[in-house]
């Protein structure tokens, strides 16, 4: 149902519409707006990409660095893994004052055990202290080359198996 008030709204809107000013060519300025908008979009996209790169690059570089020291380069002489070469059941012979390092003297292939086998994959270069009882630890058989009692020189005779073994 149309009220007089709504009729008045219609009439007023029609009057207003008739007063709309005539305009000239609107296509040219509209095309100019399209070009400007496209140019602005491209510029803003490039600026956003550059800003994202500038922000993300330091984080990416920082994420690749860690505080821990870098692992040492592999040495020419192999370092035996005590946890692998150590036999808990082995007991030092009473005639031997020390147990020479197992692999170095007789091993000709780096990274191999004295008998030529490859170490187990689960072998860890740092033996866990709770896995080896202090009584079984043999400090004289330190595999470190700096130990004066363990000479990796070939003059050291190959390890002699214990008669008990």
């Amino acid at each position: 149902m149309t009220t007089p008030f709504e009729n008045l709204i219609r009439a007023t809107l029609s009057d207003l519409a008739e007063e709309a000013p005539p305009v000239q060519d609107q296509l040219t300025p509209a095309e100019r707006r399209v070009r400007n908008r496209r140019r602005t979009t491209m510029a803003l996209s490039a600026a956003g990409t550059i800003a994202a790169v500038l922000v993300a690059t330091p984080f990416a570089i920082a994420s690749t660095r860690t505080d821990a020291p870098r692992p040492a380069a592999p040495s020419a002489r192999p370092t035996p893994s005590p946890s692998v070469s150590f036999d808990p059941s082995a007991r030092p012979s009473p005639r031997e004052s020390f147990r020479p390092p197992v692999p170095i003297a007789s091993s000709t292939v780096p990274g191999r055990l004295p008998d030529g086998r490859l170490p187990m994959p689960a072998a860890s270069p740092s033996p866990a202290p709770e896995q080896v009882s202090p009584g079984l630890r043999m400090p004289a058989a330190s595999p470190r080359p700096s130990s004066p009692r363990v000479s990796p020189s070939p003059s050291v005779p190959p390890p002699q198996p214990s008669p008990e073994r």
Partner: protein
Amino acid sequence: MDEDDRARLAEFVAGRTPALMRVAYLLTGDRHAAEDLFQSALAKTIPKWRTLRHTDPEGYLRTVMYREQVSWWRRLRRRRETALTGDGPIQPDPSGGTDVRLAMRAALRRLPPAQRTVLVLRYYEDLPEARVAEVLGCTIGTVRSRTHRAVTRLRQLLPDVELLEVRR
């Protein structure tokens, strides 16, 4: 856009600009704002002209204009409406309703763009509520509530209009 598309676009703009400018003028209430609204809507239509030329480019352009006008209000851009007449009471004159029309025109320009857009679509374009809701991208309830608020606001702005009509 090739030459054929551009020729069709120029023909469309030249043929439909007066009608579309009337709608833009009703929506904005100002000549310069109407031109700006029309050019802005046309600038959004031109990139899609290749897909619109075989469908309904005028409907698309009108929809862009309506939504752009409401969007301007939402984004609180600077108001482009011009200052209007004073708020004094409307006195009857013997000129045959001119005072009522002028008062209604001033009151229409004081409406928010969203409410004015609904009024233009409902009372100038004579679109049903469902079509208005589709054009504006809102629900029918929103259209009804906006229409009701707009009419109520007009009645508040023109308390003497119905009284003046009764006197005649």
